[in-house]
């Protein structure tokens, strides 16, 4: 119902910000795809006396490149093997996207090798350098089906725009296109002037 810079900025954000949540969260899962976490060798050497691997490893850290060559890094305060995967604490993942790096922080994470699923909980905060941010309580990222679901209320903000919903899930279409569904009490508000200011 409107024209002008605000709307195109909105769409650019819709186009960039919304799928980004999936990219970062899915990138996090790809990092643990090999069913084990590649610990930084030097770190293993500095483990406190008496802490054997079964009890867990302090600040596992790994870095590499995504399929498209974008550098990434993942670290956790602590990782301990659980039945078929890992429990992580204070997880931080960064994807060094050119011009606008993305960082995601989650209090806890459980990676299950059986169903190839990473569940992040205790508060998930994903933000970009340019000021876009997605905040929710938990996230479930599926490796096999590249699915992402945020089962609790979420708020997505970027300069001049704000989107709230009760939950989010991605749906893979036969055409290979991912649709991101925001469900329940969806509220999108845009302030074209603020958007225009932020991007001048």
């Amino acid at each position, binding site marked *: 119902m409107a024209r002008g810079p605000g709307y195109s900025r909105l769409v650019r954000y819709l186009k960039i910000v919304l799928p980004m949540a999936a990219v970062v969260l899915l990138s996090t899962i790809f990092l643990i795809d090999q069913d084990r976490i590649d610990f930084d060798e030097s770190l293993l050497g500095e483990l406190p006396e008496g802490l054997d691997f079964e009890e867990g490893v302090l600040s596992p850290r790994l870095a590499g490149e995504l399929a498209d060559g974008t550098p990434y890094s993942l670290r956790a305060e602590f990782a301990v093997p659980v039945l078929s995967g890992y429990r992580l604490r204070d997880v931080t993942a960064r994807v060094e996207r050119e011009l606008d790096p993305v960082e995601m922080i989650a209090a806890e994470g459980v990676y299950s090798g059986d169903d190839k699923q990473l569940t992040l909980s205790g508060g998930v905060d994903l933000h970009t350098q340019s000021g876009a941010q997605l905040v929710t309580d938990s996230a479930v990222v599926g490796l096999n089906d590249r699915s992402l679901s945020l089962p609790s209320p979420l708020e997505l903000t970027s300069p001049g725009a704000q989107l709230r919903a009760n939950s989010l899930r991605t749906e893979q279409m036969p055409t*290979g*296109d991912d649709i*991101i*569904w*925001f469900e329940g009490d969806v509220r999108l508000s845009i302030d*074209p002037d603020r958007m225009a200011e932020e991007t001048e």
Partner: protein
Amino acid sequence: SQPFSSFRHDSSQPVEIASDRLGVSQQAQTAEFIGNVEVLQGALTLRADQMLVSYDQGTGDIRQMVATGNVLLSSGTEAAEGQSADYNVETGFLEMQGDVLLTQGQSALSAQSMRINLNEGTGEFAGRVRTVFVPQSQ
């Protein structure tokens, strides 16, 4: 006042869009608002069962907004109802189809379709136009 004259929108105004669901498709470059859709901007309110926003592949600019099902565009002084409304953002024209009705105070005009220029607050009907005047109470 002239019919349609209050249907002018100011794109610098904040916009609020509410709905039950929103589906964003990267590939199709669309955002689909579904269920109890309400769009507020300045004095204008658009309500519909569903609204599909599609945007330009290259620039990301919004190209078109198609609202379907119980569409109501109101400005506070006038209201236009119909079964669907197709808004071309580039030209500023909103085409409403399906037993359209324009009400302004006590009078109402009905036709098969209407075309409103939201940039200028002008409009025209198409198909058989019927005018309904409701006499003012003495």
